[in-house]
Each structure stands twice: as C-alpha cells, then as structure tokens.
C-alpha cells in the first residue's frame, strides 16, 4: 500500500534557529508533494506544492527564503523552517501523490515547538 513517513515526529528548537523535516513516500512514486502547516486550532495552511521537474509553488505568506523545500526524487522531500519563531509552531504535514487528481497520502506529521 501507499505510505508516507515523516521524521522527526516531534522537535523542539530555540527561537531563531532552524530545523529540517523529511518526508518519505513508500510504495508509490511521489511525483507531487504538498507541505501543510496545521495550527494548534487545527486549521490548515498550504505552504507549497512541489512537483518533480517543475518549480516549487509557494502560497501567499510563505516563501522559499523561509521554508526552502527539496524534492530530489520520486520518494523523498524535505523542508526546512529557517529562523523559527513562536508563530511557526504547529504540525507540519506532508501529502504526496502520484500525480494528477490522485489521492493525496499524508504522513503523521512533524510537530514543531519553538522555545
């Protein structure tokens, strides 16, 4: 079956530091990967959509300078939160799909806490 693993599951960083999170697709080829942030209030924000061999498209209020994403192959993607502050706290979810209108499979997320 199609599985998506995210690691670390939980991380704590000091204010102003950076942290990297990873997303691994197993059992299918992740042509497209979407990164979301879920706030403590449970609302979702789409950060960016990454498609292999295409430019990464960031949503309004999110930039490559703050959330650089790497999607080097069909099974792996990573995102870094640079200079993390309190407003960056939340659960970061990776959703991967084969392509087109296929189902988006999600990992369990990386929970970021900022001290």
């Amino acid at each position, binding site marked *: 079956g199609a599985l*998506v693993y*995210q690691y670390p599951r939980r991380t704590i960083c000091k204010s102003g530091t950076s942290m990297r999170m990873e997303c691994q697709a197993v059992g299918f080829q992740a042509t*497209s990967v*979407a990164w*979301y942030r879920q706030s403590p*209030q*449970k*609302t*979702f924000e*789409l950060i960016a*959509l990454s498609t292999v061999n295409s430019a990464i*498209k960031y*949503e309004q209020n999110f930039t490559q300078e703050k959330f650089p994403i790497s999607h080097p192959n069909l099974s792996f993607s990573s995102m870094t939160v640079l200079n993390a502050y309190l407003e960056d706290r939340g659960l970061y*979810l990776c*959703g991967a*799909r084969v392509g*087109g*209108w296929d*189902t*988006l*499979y*999600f*990992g*369990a*997320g990386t929970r970021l806490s900022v001290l």
Partner: protein
Amino acid sequence: AQSVTQPDARVTVSEGASLQLRCKYSYSATPYLFWYVQYPRQGLQLLLKYYSGDPVVQGVNSFEAEFSKSNSSFHLQKASVHWSDSAVYFCALSMDSNNRIFFGDGTQLVVKP
C-alpha cells in the same frame, strides 16, 4: 476564489446514532471533493473522494457522502457511529490545474457511549 466551510466546529452524538457532518464549498464549477479524518496525534487519512458520476460516494468504515451541486454541499454521513469514530473530520476541495487541495477548519466528532 475557492473555499470550504464546515459550519459545525464540534458535533456530539451517542454511539449507535446516525451522523451527518456538513460541508459547503464555494466554487463556480464542480470541484474535486474529499473527506479526511484525523485521529489524535496522527496525520490525515482519506475517507472518500468525489470526482464525478454518482453523487453518493462510499468510503471506508461505512462512511458515505453526498454531493449536491445545487446546494454546493458535500455532507458526510454514517448510519451508526462507533466510539472509535471520535476524531476530527476535514472536508477538502481541489479545483485548479495546480492540483492544490484546500481544507475546511474541521469538525470535532465526539461519540458518547
């Protein structure tokens, strides 16, 4: 612009009762619609999806949803809920060539024994 609205932040039902979680969307054409569930401390799991055809779609764990173009709705239903159905349910839509998926704010379902 597209949007998804889940008007009920929290729904409480008794075990064995029927359930409807509401979802309204705003989009001029027919979007692609999804229902996801999030159990505590877990990611999102797909319950069902609608692309076209029969407006009533069947999903996992006996969930089903009915698409209504006239009402711009995609309500989730279950005939008899179990305590293990307690979770947060998210309605989502995708409508553009970029295949971005946008989520509603979620409905917390509490099933009382």
